[in-house]
């Protein structure tokens, strides 16, 4: 066994140029595929960690295809439905930031409401509420900060509400990078400030949220809400999760496109390997057979030789992808997945992948690669050695 291993190492070192080219190409393909999976996994993790504390139902007043402010009276109405808890009105809207021609999302929070703070825990964790509410402050997402800094709004920014007044709001802090995927373009401020800046009249809210802790009651609550008003749109937390899941799942859209491209490239390489066994490989097999090697010994030897190469490429590819996604933050690929729309995203990917991701990559690359190598070698090995060497 050790003698065979020694001979294997001699061949690997001797034909290192051939193996190195396969190693580099495979490493790059595995790294690309792994990067896609890592990005997908990281995005999903960040989204779900942020959405976890969201309300179970979001209700909007919806008329003729437009979202209007919802009346405050709906809050008391919804409380009459069995199983409904913590009904709240929310204030939010977009602000057009003219210097950079970008839209920011303003979210108004009632910082005295413990339920609201619990729901937004991921975003506002660690903020000193008393200090924050001492004056007109706001917490801004990474992308908002980037654009404000660009125009020297380091300490505060002046909003122009619809009533043409001037609202100077101080920048209190930046939201955590790990929530960038949903909060990069977000501005969080006290609900009264938001109401003023967005021009939401008293007695109305942008939308109304409510909780339904019992999973079994949700469908009934959904039905009761739906029949209570004809001009209503209901969004469930699951709908939002499913939307993001589909958007960033590797099976969908861009992820699928990239996967197909990677697999097709890999398929072409495999096809080439499958259809054209090199004369060196064929001669090598014939010489081994001539020296008394059995077919299974030759095949196991060649499998081992190629397995070492592809396994090294697999681990190198995974490592490279990890470094690329989680240390370099996936330049280029990030823009493909998160897009340039609205704000250029400052999202930082946090490490997240499962064992099944790694197994998927292993099965997708290592097994087909070995088969593409071994089948033509097997065909050669069952031929008469003199015929191969002729």
């Amino acid at each position, binding site marked *: 066994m050790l*003698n065979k291993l020694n001979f294997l190492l001699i061949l690997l070192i001797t034909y290192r140029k051939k193996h190195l080219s396969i190693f580099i190409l495979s490493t790059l393909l595995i790294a690309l595929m792994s990067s896609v999976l890592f990005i997908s996994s990281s995005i999903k993790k960040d989204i779900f960690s942020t959405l976890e504390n969201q309300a179970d139902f979001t209700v909007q007043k919806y008329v003729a295809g437009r979202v209007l402010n919802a009346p405050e009276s709906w809050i008391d109405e919804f409380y009459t439905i069995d199983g409904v808890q913590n009904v709240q009105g929310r204030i939010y809207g977009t602000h057009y930031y003219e210097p950079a021609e970008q839209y920011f999302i303003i979210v108004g929070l009632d910082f005295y409401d413990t339920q609201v703070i619990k729901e937004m825990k991921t975003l506002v964790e660690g903020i000193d509420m008393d200090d924050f509410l001492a004056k007109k402050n706001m917490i801004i997402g990474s992308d908002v900060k980037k654009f404000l800094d660009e125009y020297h709004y380091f300490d505060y920014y002046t909003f122009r509400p619809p009533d043409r007044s001037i609202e100077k709001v101080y920048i209190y802090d930046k939201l955590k990078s790990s929530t960038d995927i949903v909060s990069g373009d977000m501005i969080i401020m006290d609900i009264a400030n938001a109401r003023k800046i967005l021009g939401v009249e008293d007695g109305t809210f942008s939308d109304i949220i409510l909780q339904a802790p019992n999973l079994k009651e949700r469908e009934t609550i959904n039905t009761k809400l739906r029949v209570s008003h004809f001009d209503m749109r209901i969004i469930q937390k699951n709908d939002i999760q499913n939307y993001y899941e589909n958007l960033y799942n590797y099976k969908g859209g861009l992820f699928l496109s990239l996967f197909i491209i990677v697999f097709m490239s890999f398929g072409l390489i495999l096809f080439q390997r499958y259809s054209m066994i090199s004369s060196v490989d064929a001669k090598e097999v014939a010489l081994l057979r001539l020296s008394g090697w059995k077919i299974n010994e030759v095949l196991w030897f060649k499998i081992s030789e190629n397995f070492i190469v592809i396994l090294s490429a697999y681990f190198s590819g995974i490592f490279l992808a990890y470094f690329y996604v989680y240390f370099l933050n996936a330049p280029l690929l990030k823009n493909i997945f998160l897009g340039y729309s609205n704000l250029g995203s400052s999202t930082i990917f946090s490490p997240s992948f499962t064992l099944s991701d790694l197994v998927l990559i292993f099965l997708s690359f290592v097994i087909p690669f070995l088969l593409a190598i071994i089948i033509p070698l097997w065909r050669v090995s069952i031929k008469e050695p003199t015929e191969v060497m002729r």
Partner: protein
Amino acid sequence: MINIENLSKSFQTKTDTFHALKNINLKIKKGELIVIYGESGSGKSTLLSIIASIMKPTSGKVLVEGENIVSYSDIYASEYRKNRVGFVTQSFHLFDELTLHDNLLAPLVIQALTKAQIEHNIDKALLIANISHKKSQKVNTLSGGEKQRAIIARAIINNPHIVICDEPTANLDADNSLVFIETLKDLKARGKTVIISTHDPIFEAQEFVDKVIFIKDGSLV
């Protein structure tokens, strides 16, 4: 003792059947050195390939020490090639990028040998083939004669009883052919059964040759 009985080999082409060997009968005693003469395409290499168990005949038997090697499965045929027969190929078929030492590892690593035994076998084979001084050199830097000796060293590395040489001097100049003949004498002196196929007249009138056989169009003449 090698006993060949009614051996025939045919190759099927797209339009025709080519009869490479036709009903060959031959007896080779243990320790004999025989030369098979014939033109190119006469069937010499086919006959040697069958005796070396790297080709199956269409019909007939090849009995080596009473065992019909023709009926061997791949496992037994491989064992036979590994332990009982050494094959000196016509062209210089070697791992060109490997050193001579590493080329000789190929037949040894499948044996249950220690590292010391492997090195001993390599040194012994190189000594017999008179190529010890090139042990650490890559074979693609060796001359034609040296490559031929390297192939001989590989053929005898497992101390086989039978050494088969297919056109061994075809790619050698006169001087190297004479060196090769000296090696053959040495192998015969060591009790090996040596079978040589050739059309080189250098083997004519050599005292150490026990038997000369002529083959033409697949038949012994």
